């Protein structure tokens, strides 16, 4: 059974259309990953993908709850093969190992573990092969729990030495019988152990059955630190950030993502060219702080650039879910994309209400491409450190300067800073600087003109 079924996730819907020759072409976001493209698709409007904790034990059901896990739908939440070689105990306990004085026995096709002394890691373990950054669904049926009032049953991931705890939180601890299930993201590639037994702070005897570990394909965004979790809100459905410390983390697989990111927030929606290296990556603000909005309504990242039509259709899907279409209402862009070093190209967005752009693209160290006409209609001229530490091409810095001239701003704050990348051209950029200075602007650019 796939987890898609288990989670009651809605079947992949068809939305909108790409403009195409001969009429509209049906569009589904899932199609963007149909040829095994790498990436991620986060959709807070789909409650079946949100959990309050990073281990996926408590679903998000209502507004105001924390979001510790946001599942990636790009792989359609498919489960991999079973990794536990003997989790049903139908004929024997092969594969399981226990160290005295802890004991194990097969009782009625369940695993019975008794621990009344001995170390926690002496309890029954079985080998599992885990891959760094991959996520796994661990599940079992807790059949009986006997002992003192505080005796708990537990499933816990241990390292290759059997002793080192690998579980991100508590493992799966249950004080009552019944099915249990949680998500675990491996931090190392190793032959590890799954431990089944009695929780470390108590003694007793437990019976466990149907122990299972299966990979949940996808690049799931999680936050194990409680204070850094986002908050689910409705009207529209979204994961809100406090812009203090909230953020998800995802582990980008080997090879990274070079392609397109569509980010839909409460303040605007846009598609960016990105180059995201393998390793940990923030979903949400940089260190929880710099983000173009205050909530995620939808986000898609694909390794391999989207066509303009696919990007537009994806944006339309997120906007239909409640994202704001443009940035036309934003007045203060201060620090919006600051430190987003993965952005390589920036789209043309509506900046017409913007009065402050200070540090907006500061330290976007990979940003090379910036469109023409981006600031033609802005409402203010504070571009302090707006483009410091960027990698703009000559065409891009020329685009920016010419657009500032077109804005006609000749009063109020008039500051512009660029460093890194290319200097403005003599034929286009430098004359634009001359015009800006004649209007009272203080302009600092690469090359010192």
């Amino acid at each position, binding site marked *: 059974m796939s987890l898609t079924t288990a989670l009651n996730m809605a079947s992949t819907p068809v939305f909108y259309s790409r403009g195409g020759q001969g009429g509209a072409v049906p569009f589904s976001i899932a199609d963007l990953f149909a040829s095994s493209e790498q990436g991620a698709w986060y959709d807070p409007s789909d409650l079946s993908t949100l959990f309050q904790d990073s281990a996926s034990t408590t679903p998000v059901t209502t507004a105001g709850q924390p979001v510790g896990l946001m599942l990636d739908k790009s792989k359609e939440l498919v489960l991999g093969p079973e990794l536990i070689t003997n989790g049903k105990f139908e004929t024997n306990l092969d594969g399981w190992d226990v160290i005295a004085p802890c004991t194990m026995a097969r009782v009625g096709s369940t695993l019975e573990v008794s621990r009344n002394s001995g170390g926690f890691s002496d309890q029954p373990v079985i080998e599992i092969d885990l891959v760094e950054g991959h996520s796994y669904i661990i599940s079992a049926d807790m059949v009986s729990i006997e002992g003192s009032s505080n005796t708990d049953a537990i499933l816990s991931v241990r390292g290759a030495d059997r002793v080192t705890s690998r579980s991100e*939180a508590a493992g799966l601890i249950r004080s009552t019988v019944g099915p249990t299930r949680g998500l675990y993201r491996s931090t190392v590639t190793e032959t590890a152990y799954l431990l089944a037994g009695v929780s470390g*702070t108590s003694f007793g005897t437990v019976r466990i059955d149907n122990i299972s570990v299966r990979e949940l394909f996808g690049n799931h965004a999680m936050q194990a*630190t*409680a*204070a850094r979790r986002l908050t689910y809100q409705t009207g529209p459905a979204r994961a809100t950030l*406090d812009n*203090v410390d909230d953020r998800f*983390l995802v582990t980008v697989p080997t090879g990274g993502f070079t392609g397109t990111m569509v980010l839909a927030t409460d303040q605007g929606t846009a598609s960016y060219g990105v180059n995201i290296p393998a390793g940990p990556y923030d979903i949400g603000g*940089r260190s929880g*702080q710099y983000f173009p909005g205050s909530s995620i309504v939808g986000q898609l990242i694909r390794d391999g650039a989207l066509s303009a039509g696919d990007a537009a259709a994806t944006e339309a899907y997120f906007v239909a879910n409640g994202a704001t279409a443009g940035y036309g209402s934003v007045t203060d862009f201060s620090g919006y994309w600051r430190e987003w070093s993965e952005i390589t190209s920036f789209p043309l967005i509506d900046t017409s209400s913007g009065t402050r752009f200070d540090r907006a693209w500061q330290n976007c160290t990979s940003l090379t491409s910036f469109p023409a006409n981006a600031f033609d209609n802005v409402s203010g001229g504070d571009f302090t450190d707006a483009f410091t530490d960027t990698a703009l091409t000559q065409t891009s810095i020329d685009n920016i300067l010419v657009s500032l001239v077109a804005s006609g701003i000749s009063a109020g704050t008039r500051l512009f800073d660029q460093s890194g990348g290319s200097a403005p051209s003599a034929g286009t950029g430098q004359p634009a600087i001359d015009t800006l200075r004649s209007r009272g602007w203080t302009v600092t650019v690469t090359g010192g003109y």
Partner: protein
Amino acid sequence: MRLTIACPDALRDDANNLAMVLGYGPSDAETYGELNWQDAGGNLYACASLTVSDTFTTAAQSGLQRPAWDNDNIIDMDAARRAQAALVFSLTPVAAMPDKLTACVGDDGLATLAAMGLTQVEVEVDVGV
């Protein structure tokens, strides 16, 4: 309700142990990370902002017990108790103090930090962990 907490550098380790006791697992040891806020005197703080239940403040001021998940005795309970002793709760913003763990109630984390007299420090931020 939303609680926003300012933790001075000297209390970070202790406060992260307290966060594990009141939280859910070892990852709560990362509650107070970068020192990217400062007061008027230049004292640096790591800040956290989170929604808590009504019982949280009571639990945070009650006797501390090692949580059931801590099978490996990760938490330094003495450190957690030191942080608890330094804890100051307020239903309205008060100035952050360099020798206290100052926790204030307020709907907007950023606005609460501003009302606590804290401003962002210009530092390079980490991407990811």
